[in-house]
């Protein structure tokens, strides 16, 4: 994530060299996807947004200026804009997801471990929904994308100590909500 020499080399080559872009893509895909997944809470939408984010990153890669920001901050800037645009485009509603309906319900009970994992996931999403937009963003950058507090500060424009305060406050609130 930091401006590693190796990463800068990839970025410089990525506009013309597929293997260089592949290295960037493979490194950042899980981070970007998970960030999107926990921000929009829907797998299909996370896929769509991740595709938009990387397509835009490729288009604008040659305009990236390493001296202005680490590459990860630049990429997550694109991601945050894409997610904000998504919310704006959807206006104010989402409809029951196709994922809930696209297959016929099975009469077999789900395996216990799958059911338990899904329940944990659903409860976490519900608890996340109780946080403020800024708290959700910071939590997703921290735990879904795996960024450090300093990197989150670079992405959000917040001070590093402020990020720490938000994280602690949000984590405590999440735990309270999950224990209710």
């Amino acid at each position, binding site marked *: 994530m930091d401006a590693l020499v190796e990463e800068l080399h990839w970025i410089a080559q990525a506009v013309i060299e597929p293997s260089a872009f592949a290295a960037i893509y493979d490194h950042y895909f899980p981070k970007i996807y*998970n960030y999107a997944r926990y921000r929009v809470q829907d797998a299909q939408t996370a*896929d769509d947004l991740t595709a938009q984010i990387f397509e835009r990153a490729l288009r604008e890669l040659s305009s990236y200026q390493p001296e202005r920001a680490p590459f990860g901050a630049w990429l997550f800037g694109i991601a945050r804009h894409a997610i904000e645009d998504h919310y704006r485009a959807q206006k*104010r509603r989402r409809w029951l997801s196709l994922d809930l*309906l696209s297959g016929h319900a099975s009469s077999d009970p*789900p395996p216990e471990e799958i059911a338990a994992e899904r329940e944990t996931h659903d409860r976490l999403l*519900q608890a996340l929904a109780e946080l403020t937009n800024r708290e959700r963003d910071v939590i997703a950058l921290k*735990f879904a994308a795996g960024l450090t507090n300093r990197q989150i500060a670079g992405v959000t424009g917040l001070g590093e100590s402020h990020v720490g305060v938000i994280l602690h406050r949000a984590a405590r609130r*999440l*735990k309270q909500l999950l224990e209710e």
Partner: protein
Amino acid sequence: MDDKDLSDVARLFTDYSGESRIRETLRHDLLARIEHPAAPPKGVKTMLYGTPRRRLALAASTLVVIMMTVLVIPPLRSWAQDVLRQIGVITLTDEPTYAEKEVERLNNHEPAPTMVPVETDPDQPTCGILEPFDVTEASARVGFPVYEPSYLPQSGTFSLTGRDSLLGSDRIVSRSVYGNSTLPDTLMLMQAKPTDPSTQLWETPDDATATDITINDLPATWIENYPDDETLAHFQSSVATGVNLLIWEQDGYTFLLESFFLPQNQMIQIAESLMAAENVPAEASEPFCQIHFLGREQAGNLTGMPAYEPTYLPDDFYLWSRGRDETRAIYTTYQRYKDGWFEGYEVEDMIHLIQFRTGDETEEIAIGDAPITDAIVNGQPAVWVANWAIGYQPVDYTEEWKTVDTNLLIWEADGYTFMLQAARSQDEMIRIAESLSAE
């Protein structure tokens, strides 16, 4: 502050990236664009589909999945208590509606029922990948003769980079791209066949300065230095400020020729040199790269029944998506579109039509306590269900899931069962229903 809070919360998060359905295809697509820099990027690709207005429509269609959710057929249930009415393949029961049950489940944080995983189609091509096949193969893929220029300018060396084909909502398109080894230019030829011959495939953008010219004595439009932002952004072009476009209709096709720098006289010369491929199969041999929805003809071919369409829709409503459920049903959604964008996602902005194959398995649709009344569509008995609930959640996720009422009109015609769902008046929905046509 307690770091245990952070570590406890961290353990709740899961790496879902392995579940992404697009990880490999997106990677392949992006790398191909780098490998073939002349490959049409998003901006150019969308030009293929017509005007900026149309482009917006396609962008909005990326949300098709969310929109289609409103009226996907509820699965057969065994718990139906009382059958209220049967019409065609549809059985109405007094169970709570699907949305009512699902909203309750979501708000109670109960686990979802196990779903059969959605399988991807291995034969489905990845969009946006150019392949350097010849004009005969390009023609075989789309099922009509692809035209090729017999003249290319000598300024630099233009040569074929690749071709692809796409299926839009109202057109089949073959695209050929010619790169230039010495000049920073790319020449693109797009040949579009409307799926409905009456469809006008090209509208000159409002912000373009167009000139009327002729190509082989046929009327044509010349647009110089059009600021196509997406195309220019992709190419990171520091030398071009726009694209030159030549558009004309010939032999039932709409052609669009695009270049950064070629002047009008050379573009005309290329256009007038086009020759049609010979010995072309009458039908497409390859599955199309589909952009989110099926063409009407393709929906018909895939389901084995003609796809009906209304000839009347309320003002500002346009086709938004079309899909199918195996061969059982065709789903078509129309959405309000105004001032350059689909207006919104409120219940009143959408009209859904489902056409069921009669004679196959029946569909149970739970309507709860929504009142049923008789209606007439084209002189035949129909059923009107008022205040049928569908589900939604405010998009910022801060509120609970809710239901909102809409209406259903169900009737039979020509051996098919139709269901229209919209938050419109009964008179207007009947008018839409009576305008359905297979032609």
